[in-house]
């Protein structure tokens, strides 16, 4: 079958990989592609957990392909290419991680009006040089919404500006509160999504007057509304 002999007397070396190693790499890659796809299509977790999961699967698949397709570390003697590979990965971590860290920080400190209001709320700054930030000077009454058995109680909450609203999750699952009617996600007071783990609670300050709806992003039948009067 050989059209010409290359190193005929040299036994096939492992460093270039065998059909078995390519098949293994191919099958593993398929699995590591389809699992995150399935997770995203069925929206298994909350958004932040999902992003962490799919990126982990991406990194795992990269390692699989580096080992089974690129055969890194199975080359000749001193592993200069391995050293170079890890040096590059280190640089990438610095460049990508550093950029995201810096830009996130920048975003945190130079934000649109609504987000800076949320920030002012968090840090209890109700005025800056005599200018009101929209944050509440004093928090008034607290209202509680309990999620249990796939329902919210009470369905409707009436509140005054600068009251607080607490979501308590008594169900055995995570709850992702989004504002607006399903499937829309609006922001309320700078919050776009409120993740309440099972058995935990989250509180927001009602510093925006009006009528607002909310729903559980993972189960839109869990929904309610609140009215904030001036």
């Amino acid at each position, binding site marked *: *079958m*050989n*059209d*010409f*002999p*290359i*190193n005929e*007397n*040299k036994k*096939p070396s492992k460093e*270039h*990989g*065998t*059909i078995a190693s*390519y*098949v293994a*790499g*191919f099958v593993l*890659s*398929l699995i590591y*592609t389809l699992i*995150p*796809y399935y997770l*995203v*299509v069925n*929206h298994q977790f909350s*958004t932040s957990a*999902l*992003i962490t999961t*799919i*990126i982990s*699967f*991406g990194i795992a*698949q*990269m390692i699989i*392909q*580096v080992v089974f*397709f*690129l055969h890194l570390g199975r*080359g*000749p*003697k001193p592993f*200069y*290419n391995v050293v*170079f*590979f890890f*040096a*590059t990965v280190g*640089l*990438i971590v610095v*460049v*990508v991680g550093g*950029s*995201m860290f810096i*830009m996130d920080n920048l975003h945190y400190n130079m934000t649109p009006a609504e987000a800076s209001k949320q920030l002012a709320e968090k840090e209890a700054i109700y005025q800056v040089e005599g200018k009101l930030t929209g944050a509440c000077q004093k928090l008034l009454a607290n209202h509680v919404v309990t999620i249990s058995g796939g329902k919210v109680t009470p369905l409707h909450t009436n509140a005054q500006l600068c009251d607080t609203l607490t979501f308590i999750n008594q169900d055995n699952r995570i709850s992702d509160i989004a504002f607006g009617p399903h499937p829309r996600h609006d922001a309320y007071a700078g919050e776009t999504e409120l993740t309440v783990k099972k058995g935990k609670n989250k509180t927001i300050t009602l510093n925006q007057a009006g009528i607002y709806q909310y729903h559980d992003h993972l189960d839109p039948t869990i929904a309610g509304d609140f009215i904030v009067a001036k």
Partner: protein
Amino acid sequence: MVDEQAPTHHQAEADDRALFGFWIYLMTDLLMFSVLFAVYAVLHGNTDGGKTGKDLFSLNLALTETLILLTSSFTCGIGMIAARAGRKNQVLTWFGLTFILGLIFLGLELNEFSNLIREGHTIQSNAFLSSFFTLVGTHGLHITSGLLWMAVTLIYIAKRGLNSNMVRKLAMLSLFWHFLDIVWIFIFTIVYLRAFA
């Protein structure tokens, strides 16, 4: 560890050096992609009130592209085994298959781009689309040059046969192709899957 085959010893060393040089190029290329990824990660929310990735992308199309590129990476690997064994016809078959799969991938990507542009979502629309077209387009350009390289190499092999020089060139080409598949996994994850998360 020590290669006892005197006649092939020099050739093997030269091959290793050439492949290492190519490896360094791949790593610097990877650095360039990582910068484009960082840009996309920072800007993907800046849609200037326009549509987000969730409204613009098709997850099924992205999955199809991923599976096609993954399969082409596999056929490329099998072709490389045939090349090292000196089987010319098998090399032409497997790399030919890789070439066709790469061409289909490129066609799907260009189709996606032209659909977006026809609907008015161009590279100039907003920062999100600028970074999207730059990142995915750069990968597409790499695929295009890989396909050209593959076509030239295959024509050469078909006409003049397989020799150890050509095997080394095929080894570099397959490294390049596997590398592009790895970059695409991150595009699939960070651009497409993340948009629907």
